[in-house]
């Protein structure tokens, strides 16, 4: 009896982290309920975001502690809720812990940002109850250890976020965004439902442990993989399933946009990793090729879409698509290496992909906060109506610039490290035997290189047009800096961009348990490397040291500036703009977002997007204004969704006739359906 008691005690101790996280989730759900009651009162915004901040920070602490110390442990818990005979399983292995960190780091800082930003909300009652519910749902998805709980939480996540997307449904664009989001979310869940159904098999045991233990046949594994890619990919924003993303993400209030873009897409990635790497197990070569191809296309198209935008938030949303592509390239490479039994290379590629998951959640949140700050300060999202904000919003300008540099993969910030690791993974791939992959991987590498360069162009545009130059409208001219809470959240994220870029070895080591669980191997411990360099394979092969680069960089910049100021001159005079001797006063003569992107639009856009530019000049003597119009078509709408919508409409028209039959005809239909089904059953046996 004593032994039994001790055993129970040890078990309870083992599941403590799960209980802690579930407690946090329960607190968030309770908060959502409270928020419904108090949303119309004055201090509601402060209470809800403050409480979410505390709970998320607690959850973040638990997840950090679990990943940092619980090496190889996977605390789990079964609650007698949910389906009879199944219960709700929860488990917190290394993968779940890592994604809990991503979710709750985003949640914590978004709550902090929301403390300031949320005050400007015109309809707080439409946002406040759903915000903690959304956070709770994302935590539950990551924690779930059976298909039922997973799907239920996944749907809760979709619905809670949908409610925030349509919070401002007065604007017709937002309603449309919400409608398309709902459609795509249902499609994704349907795919996941079928994938789990296939994996659970005829026995129908939906616990992940059972699915993991049952090795699916080749056909079932293949089908489940395709369904998981479609289901999780639609949430993450894989081309061509990305169409809802640039509509829905900008429609939400900016802090929730940050959560949608920075965090929820990562939960989509989590779903894919969980099903494909963990539940299905050993990947097939062709499946890695599919992931790589979609990843490469997504990364290149995503950044090209982003370059064509002039709405700041929509640009950021489209750019998320690119980063999802980069993450999926890493995952696809890991699958290819795994299929070839190259565990160490799979570990490298997986580390690159997961590192980018972390990085993107950081800098995309930062940039959306920045866009929110611009929106608060000016009421504008359209870059063509902004400009010169660096003078009016000095702090936001600094952090937004750091975010832009980080997302453009510039050393010594964090975005560069994950792209560098991906490139290193590509460079070990000639050892792969399959010819298909031998041709595909260099092509994907070229697409990745292209998207890295275009990303820099995209963010020179985003920062240059919004923050530099001269203000284009009075709104931009009269902007004032945003509140301290918002700034604090942005500064924290900017600091993480720096730290993860300068000391990437610690992040890689932190990821090691996750990678070891999934790929069966890990990178050599990086914190043991001298001078804190990162050395993914061997010292003779490649190494990078962000800290030394930063030190050199700062030293040479400061030395040069000091030398010149000390020994040459430091005299400075302010004067009017020179502009080759013909300064034009009007700020409309500046380069705009559209004109900045024009050369790239011409070069890449005419074939990909069927860009159509038209100029309408007034005739001689006419007093009307000239018009310039650019039409950019998303090929996904043209090639996939347009035909699909038309086909659905046609089918609906045809089937409409079935609604006006006589009772005799209905009975005939019913009976014949029954007979056909019975026949099928007989034949199947």
């Amino acid at each position, binding site marked *: 009896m004593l032994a039994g008691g001790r055993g129970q005690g040890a078990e309870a101790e083992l599941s403590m982290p799960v209980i802690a996280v579930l407690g946090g989730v329960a607190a968030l759900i309770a908060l959502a309920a409270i928020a419904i009651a108090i949303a119309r009162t004055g201090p509601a915004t402060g209470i809800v975001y403050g409480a979410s901040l505390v709970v998320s920070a607690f959850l973040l602490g638990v997840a950090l502690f679990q990943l940092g110390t619980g090496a190889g442990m996977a605390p789990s818990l079964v609650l007698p809720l949910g389906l009879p005979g199944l219960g709700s399983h929860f488990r917190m292995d290394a993968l779940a812990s890592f994604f809990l960190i991503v979710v709750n780091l985003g949640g914590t800082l978004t709550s902090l940002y929301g403390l300031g930003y949320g005050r400007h909300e015109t309809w707080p009652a439409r946002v406040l109850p759903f915000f903690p519910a959304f956070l709770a749902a994302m935590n539950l998805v990551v924690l779930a250890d059976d298909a039922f709980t997973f799907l239920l939480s996944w749907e809760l996540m979709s619905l809670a976020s949908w409610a925030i997307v349509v919070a401002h449904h007065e604007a017709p664009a937002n309603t449309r965004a919400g409608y398309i989001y709902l459609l795509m979310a249902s499609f994704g869940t349907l795919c996941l439902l079928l994938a789990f159904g296939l994996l659970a098999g005829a026995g129908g045991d939906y616990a992940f442990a059972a699915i993991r233990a049952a090795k699916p046949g080749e056909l079932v594994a293949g089908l489940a993989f395709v369904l998981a890619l479609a289901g999780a990919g639609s949430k993450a924003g894989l081309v061509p399933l990305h169409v809802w993303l640039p509509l829905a993400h900008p429609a939400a209030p900016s802090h929730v946009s940050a959560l949608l873009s920075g965090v929820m897409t990562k939960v989509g990635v989590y779903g894919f990793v969980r099903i494909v790497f963990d539940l299905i197990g050993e990947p097939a070569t062709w499946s890695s090729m599919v992931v790589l191809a979609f990843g490469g296309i997504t990364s290149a198209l995503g950044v090209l879409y982003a370059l064509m935008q002039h709405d700041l938030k929509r640009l950021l949303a489209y750019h998320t698509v690119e980063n999802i592509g980069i993450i999926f390239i890493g995952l696809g490479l890991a699958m290819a290496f795994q299929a070839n039994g190259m565990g160490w290379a799979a570990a490298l590629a997986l580390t690159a992909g997961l590192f980018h998951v972390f990085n993107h959640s950081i800098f995309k949140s930062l940039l959306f906060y920045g866009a929110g700050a611009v929106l608060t300060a000016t009421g504008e999202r359209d870059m063509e109506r902004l400009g010169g904000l660096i003078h009016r919003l000095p702090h936001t300008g600094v952090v937004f610039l750091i975010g832009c540099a980080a997302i453009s993969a510039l050393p010594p910030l964090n975005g560069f490290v994950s792209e560098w690791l991906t490139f290193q993974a590509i460079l070990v791939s000639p050892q792969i035997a399959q010819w298909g992959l031998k041709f595909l991987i260099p092509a994907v590498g070229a697409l990745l290189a292209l998207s890295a360069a275009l990303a820099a162009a995209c963010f020179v545009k985003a920062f240059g047009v919004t923050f530099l130059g001269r203000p284009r409208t009075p709104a931009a001219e009269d902007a004032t800096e945003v509140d301290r809470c918002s700034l604090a959240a942005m500064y924290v994220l900017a600091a993480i961009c720096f730290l993860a870029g300068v000391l990437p070895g610690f992040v890689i080591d932190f990821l090691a348990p996750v990678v070891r669980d999934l790929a069966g191997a890990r990178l050599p411990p990086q914190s043991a490397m001298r001078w804190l360099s990162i050395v993914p394979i061997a010292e003779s092969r490649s*190494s990078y040291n962000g800290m030394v680069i930063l030190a050199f960089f700062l030293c040479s910049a400061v030395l040069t500036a000091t030398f010149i100021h000390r020994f040459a001159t430091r005299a400075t005079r302010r004067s009017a703009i020179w502009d080759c001797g013909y300064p034009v006063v009007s700020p409309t003569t500046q380069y705009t977002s559209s004109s900045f992107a024009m050369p790239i639009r011409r070069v890449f856009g005419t074939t990909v997007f069927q860009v159509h530019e038209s100029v309408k000049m007034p005739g001689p003597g006419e007093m009307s204004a000239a018009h310039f119009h650019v039409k950019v078509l998303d090929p996904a709408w043209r090639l996939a969704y347009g035909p699909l919508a038309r086909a659905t409409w046609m089918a609906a028209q045809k089937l409409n006739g079935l609604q006006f039959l006589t009772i005799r005809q209905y009975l005939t239909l019913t009976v014949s359906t029954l007979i056909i089904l019975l026949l099928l059953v007989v034949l199947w046996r």
Partner: protein
Amino acid sequence: MALIDNMSVQDLLGELAAQGLQMFLVLLLAPLMLGVTRKVKARLLRRRGPSVLLPYRDIWKLMHKEAVLAHNASWVYRSAPYLIFAATWVAAALVPTYATGLLFSWSADLIAIVALLATARFALALAGMDVGTAFGGIGSSREMLISSLAEPAMLLIAFTVALVAGTTQLSAIAAHMIHEPVGLRVSLGLALFAFIFVGVAENARIPIDNPATHLELTMVHEAMVLEYSGRHLAVIEAAAALKLVLYFSLLICLFAPFGMITGEKSFQTLGIALGVYVAKLLVLAVALPIGETAVAKMRVFRYPIFLGGAFAAAALAVFLLFVSQSF
């Protein structure tokens, strides 16, 4: 890196001096190389041309002039020259010039050096947009077009060389090219071809850009820095000269590293290696204007053809190496 641990203080100082020598070597040689290209170009055009030392005097003179800033110039505009210069200088100091395996050669590989140049370009393009003139905008916009075509090509060149040498460390690549029987390879030939195209584009030379022009329709680099004056302009000019030497050094390191010191350094080997390096730089500095005078400046929308060619050549080289390591 392993070197550092089992090294006496004296050796460490020697290694530091070797790294420092490289750092200041590229800085001091940069204006000279620019002067040589200008002189050769002038002679080819049957002008006498200025002294090869003129770039030194220009930079010195500009450094002592007061900087004139537009009223609405922000801190981005004021700090960008130093950031551009620092990024270019760090990148140039990490490319092996006269010896492999210098003290800090492991801190950045070829991909990181390409990315450091991207950092410099990012700062330059933002500086071009800071004051809010149409010229700055046109320069930045075109610069980003060129870089979006040239940078992927450059990365594919890096892939090619890395696949041949089995490493992305520049120092190890140079050592591999010197010691191993690499031979004449199709892939390296294609990479060299692509590298020359990319180098021409990145350094704003004809046929992509004209460093001597002030004709608005043809400007790219000059348009971005149009508003700069005084010490800021001096630093930018120095960075441009450094970038040229960086690309020369990179070409030498990747495709013609013979004559570099790969083992112990002595004063004799040092002298020879430095002499060989400077001689190679001079050959390139003479060859560049010869190539430039032979072709005409291109229209903007012909750049994609020029750089797309480089991209295709480099991509072909990578494909060949994926098919077989012996290409």
